[in-house]
């Protein structure tokens, strides 16, 4: 099986430790993933901000870069959702039937990290050790677009030493929403305040999620409040060992 990592633009730029963690987890499970360096971005931000035309060349690039792989692993529910639920439609709107077929093909082989581990590799215990109290925030796109269900939690529950605390109102959006965080900053901040309050109520020292973008927002709020609560992508927790 030829596996590729689509690391996502945000992780590449701002959270490289998440990409490194994915590589570590996969290698521990005997999977050698390729990282085609021609990859850049899925184009979701352009689409969701109202510029689908700018995303079409990015879709074209994405399907070309990832054409030869059996599985494409993405450490982001949101970017995996963009590939699976936006790319083919963008190609169709651009009137490009060939690109549409290619996009559907790549989409069918694209997996969010927890889906890849649980469904493709059939693993829920990745051999991790993480002796901390952790609460998990299920990100909206992983939950309601990809429908990953409890896969991330199954992976976390199998981590040795972890103390998982249930997050109150966990399925409520954290308020990030891409450019929403800036365009509607006040509402975004109000949602964030409720999310950080919920995180603090768990007594966890770490808030985990499957999206670096939401974590940038939640972590930024926790940092501003001086809570000392840290954020971790689930890949980072799954990568840590004794």
């Amino acid at each position, binding site marked *: 099986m030829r596996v590729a990592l689509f690391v996502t633009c945000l992780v590449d*730029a701002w959270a490289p430790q998440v990409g490194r963690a994915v590589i570590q987890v996969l290698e521990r499970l005997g999977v050698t993933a390729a990282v085609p360096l021609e990859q850049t971005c899925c184009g979701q931000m352009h689409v969701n901000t*109202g510029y689908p035309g700018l995303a079409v060349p990015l879709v074209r690039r994405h399907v070309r870069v990832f054409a030869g792989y059996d599985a494409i692993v993405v450490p982001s529910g949101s970017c995996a959702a963009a590939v699976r639920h936006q790319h083919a439609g963008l190609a169709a709107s651009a009137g490009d039937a060939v690109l549409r077929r290619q996009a559907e093909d790549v989409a069918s082989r694209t997996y969010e990290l927890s889906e890849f581990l649980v469904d493709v590799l059939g693993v829920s215990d990745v051999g991790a050790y993480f002796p901390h109290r952790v609460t998990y925030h299920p990100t909206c796109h992983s939950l309601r677009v990809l429908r990953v269900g409890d896969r991330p939690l199954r992976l976390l529950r199998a981590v040795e030493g972890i103390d998982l605390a249930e997050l109150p109102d966990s399925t409520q959006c954290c308020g990030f929403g891409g450019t929403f*965080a*800036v*365009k509607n*900053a006040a509402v975004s901040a109000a*949602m964030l305040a409720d999310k950080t309050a919920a995180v603090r109520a768990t007594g966890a020292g770490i808030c985990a999620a499957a999206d670096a973008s939401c974590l940038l927002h939640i972590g930024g*709020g926790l940092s501003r409040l001086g809570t000392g609560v840290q954020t971790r992508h689930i890949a980072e927790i799954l990568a840590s060992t004794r």
Partner: protein
Amino acid sequence: MTGAAGANAPRGVGHLRGDTPFPAAAERALTDAQLRRNLLRATSTIQAKRAQAVAELDDWQQLRAAGAAIKDAVLAHLDDYLLQLEEQVTARGGTVHWARDANEANRIVTGLVAATGAAEVVKVKSMATQEIGLNEALAAAGIGAVETDLAELIVQLGHDWPSHILVPAIHRNRTEIRDIFLREMPDADPALTDDPAALAEAARRHLRRKFLTARVAVSGANFAVAETGTLVVVESEGNGRMCLTLPPTLITVMGIEKVVPAWRDMEVFLQLLPRSSTAERMNPYTSTWTGSVEGQDFHLVLLDNGRTATLADPAGRSALRCIRCSACLNVCPVYQRTGGHAYGSVYPGPIGAVLTPQLTGVADNPTLPFASTLCGACYDVCPVAIDIPSMLVHLRSRVIADKAAGRRAPTAEAAAMAGLAWTMRSRRRWTWALRAVRLGRVLGWRQDRITRLPAPMSAWTASRDVPRPPRQSFRDWWARR
């Protein structure tokens, strides 16, 4: 209907435009702590009850699919069904009027009421008449309108605007309601308490007199069955039924998308609607009537007001499936915090964010499609499976295209987006851009985090820190590994 129909279709007017863009209106609403408490409490309660009521049905997803399919079939042949409805209503003694927009509908209704000589009408709770601003139009003609739905009455007596489709006074708690009654109801007992039963009794006494004296009633409609010309109103209090049956003249204002082909379709919607809206298994008062009954003079006003224009957009038209249950409002994390007034339209929340800009044209409501995090909670609960998040994204592109069409130079945002896309179209440019990000480390050198950024990113740092950029991008790490 073809796309060309959209170009000449009338645009929606009436209560569909706020005077403040959503972000500013929302920010103002957020400062009202009482409003936020009232809203969060009410929406959380309804939301939980709805989830329970829906979970009782094994075939909920099939019902949803059926509801969506029936509505789509209607929309695909709307012209045929509307003509059939007109024919049936007319054959049974009713009179059908066609209104291109709110102004025309208001003229028609005002004229009909004036012809009866009545100085006051009683009203069944109706979104369509709120949309067109009928009460104000009647007032301008010297005709009083009395809202008889309890919550609408509270809103009306409070000189206020509805903030929710189904529970228009959701932003009020019972103490506020008692104060409104004491202030505005001349016949209220000065010792009135804020006990819900006492408040309901005060409203009942106040309204009973109105029902018995009114000569004209105005209603909306939840559905209109084309095969027989039957109108359907679904309500919880029975006040609607009083209006529908007592006055000698009944005028119904109905959006053209409310038509369904046949009675058997009601089986689907009378399950979907009550469970989604009030979390009830069966709706308490379902009134149906066909034409002029027992000498009651019946008029049906069919309202376009931007619906044909909405129908013309294949990626937006399914917003017309909406049956006004408001389940999407109750689960929306944005609505839950801002309430309905911030949307500036009688249709707030997620459905309002997709419906309102289509009724008015996106140029008049450019901020509404952006009033969402695209979290998807609305789509999950929608009983007619309107993919609101995808539609919001589509409407955002229409807003951006509309803005670009009116100017020579691109907006700063458009230029930034184009620049970013250009960078992302090349491995070399992207790699260098990530190395440039590293320069940002100078900003966070003191505490390993960035606490202030210049505009427009100051909107981010107003409530959030930014971690210091990493020393090395992922790709540089990978290349040297």
